[in-house]
């Protein structure tokens, strides 16, 4: 019967995992190109706001408005991340400070615009978010079918597809090789004729696209509207997933599953005998606590891009 609960948990866990995986993949592009992106949280907020707003405004007019919402989230994330790129690449800002500023800015801008558009501090509620689907045929496979193909949000498949795409781009294309070189030793990369500034722009803007998409996915699957608390630290958990997944797309996938399940656990704890006596707050704390433990686990094994976080100075040796 406990196994039955685990099976039931799958759709919820995958729902939470999808935005974490997407956003962490975004962080992977940014950090591999040499720019630390602590603004992922803010990028998710902007994406979530855009996604919810477009869905609310269009759902009475066009079919499948939520999918346009996802697209809007992606674009909003790209636009917002331009700020991080300009500040940290062109104007040589400290990347952590710039990211922090963007996180504060995201809270301000999204609620400000909510007030302008909806005259309240949140967006209106949408009635049709992304719907769960069952893949015909595949959902009849014993166990696996129930885990991955029954009543699953299609956004999870988008996440899986982008994991594969990221792996291919980062490890199998010249573009990926050049980008990684900029994250390891930008001066050496530049000496080989690679345009470091361009590569870093690419990394940051892709992180904006994926993070914005992640935010829109989160609000359109797990929420009914955008509020200031819609993202509640998921961007930071994505950042931790990147470390936990050792800057590797498949590692990120695994870490995303891990955090997806730890979030889902709070919903199902009351049905599991030895967990039902614990207070609800314990389960709210769990994902964050596990993040710290996960970081501790991989501490000291520095496998991240070497030049990530460094201001690019072309004169440095």
């Amino acid at each position, binding site marked *: 019967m406990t196994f039955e609960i685990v099976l039931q948990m799958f759709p919820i866990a995958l729902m939470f995992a999808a935005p974490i995986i997407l956003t962490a993949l975004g962080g992977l592009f940014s950090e591999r190109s040499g720019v630390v992106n*602590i603004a992922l949280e803010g990028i998710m907020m902007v994406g979530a706001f855009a996604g919810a707003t477009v869905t609310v405004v269009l759902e009475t007019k066009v079919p499948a408005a939520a999918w346009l919402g996802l697209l809007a989230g992606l674009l909003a994330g790209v636009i917002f991340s331009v700020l991080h790129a300009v500040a940290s690449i062109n104007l040589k800002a400290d990347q952590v400070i710039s990211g922090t500023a963007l996180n504060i800015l995201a809270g301000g801008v999204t609620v400000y615009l909510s007030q302008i558009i909806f005259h309240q501090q949140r967006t209106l509620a949408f009635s049709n978010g992304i719907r769960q689907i069952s893949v015909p045929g595949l959902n009849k496979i014993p166990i696996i079918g129930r885990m991955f193909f029954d009543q699953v949000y299609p956004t999870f498949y988008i996440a899986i597809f982008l994991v594969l795409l990221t792996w291919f781009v980062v490890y199998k294309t010249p573009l990926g090789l050049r980008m990684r070189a900029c994250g390891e030793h930008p001066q050496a990369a530049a000496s080989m004729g690679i345009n470091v500034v361009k590569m870093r722009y690419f990394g940051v803007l892709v992180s904006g696209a994926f993070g914005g998409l992640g935010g829109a996915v989160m609000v359109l699957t797990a929420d009914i509207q955008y509020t200031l608390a819609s993202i509640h630290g998921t961007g930071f958990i994505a950042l931790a997933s990147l470390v936990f997944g050792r800057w590797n797309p498949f590692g990120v996938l695994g870490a995303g599953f891990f955090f997806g399940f730890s979030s889902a656990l709070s919903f199902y704890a009351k049905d599991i005998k030895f967990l039902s006596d614990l207070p609800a707050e314990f389960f709210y704390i769990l994902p964050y606590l596990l993040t710290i433990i996960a970081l501790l686990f991989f501490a*000291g094994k520095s496998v991240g891009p070497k030049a990530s976080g460094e201001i690019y100075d072309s004169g440095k040796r």
Partner: protein
Amino acid sequence: MVLPLISVLLGFVLGSLIVILTGRSPVSMFAAILKGFSGIDILNGQPINTRYIGEFIIQAMPIILTGLSFAFAMRTGLFSIGAEGQLMVGSIAATAVALFVQAPRFIHLPLVLLAAIAGGALWGAIPGFLKARYNVHEVVVTIMMNYIALHFNNFMILHVYGSADHIKTAPFPDTALLKSQFLESITRYSRLNWGFIPVILAAIAFAFIINKTTFGYSLRAVGYNKEAARYAGMKVSRNIILSMAIAGAFAGLAGGVITVGTFNFGRVIPSAEGYGFDGIAVALVGSNQALGIVLAGMLFGGLKAAQPLMQSQGIPREIAGIIQASIVLFVAMKYGIKMILDKFERKQAPTTEGDRV
């Protein structure tokens, strides 16, 4: 000194542009800000209302402390985003002492504040320890500790301290409060209280530790160059833990000042209140110096106090956050701004050597 001022100016310019672009009037925004600082209502020609001054100081107190917190860790080269959580743990500790200890005011109140300081210091020491011992990056850990503190606070209020309405605890006894009838009466019954005294003491302690003690010197040495400090025989790990603990102590005190000053009960907190991020902005604009932090704290405190006034003028209150974030962004771009300024200056005054750029 000039760069933070330019950043502040640019922040306000950008904020005004956004207000104009969204069809609102920047004049009423600045009128609201002036009223938030001084109580002068320039649009209606009202004289000074001291109540606003009291409320503005109330807003400035906690963020000066969280600013000191961020700056203290920064001086040791640590980027701590943990002030928010340390503040909450400070207020959890303060609430316990305020509710469950009975003593005359001159013992009870200091005990409450000391508990807040200790709570914050403990919460700060944990990421410090993880950084020093296992080299876990403090940024992500402190952020996670903020969320843990938030839910821990709510757990303590709801399940340990007890709450009849599931929102707040029973009111504290008067002996635990920073309340001052005198200060209230001279500010037309604002919430102004004695909290500003520990805030000033904290700023002095910050300046003293950092600038005047060997301990402060060795903390700064670790901040400048960890390996060099280690080579010079300084205890780098110990310094990192202590620096984070002291940073936590400042933030914890902020929790105490809020809990027994602004409020007189422990509260369930639905989501982060932003004192931590405000503190980062305050510290960056204040150049991580005690005096600068006090001034920057007053600037952003006034901006916060003006928020409800802006809202009543039809300007969304979040513009304050937008202005604050853009100021931080401009401060972060200081190298870039400096480059632009230098270029500008060279164009203004061409030297005899001629500039070949």
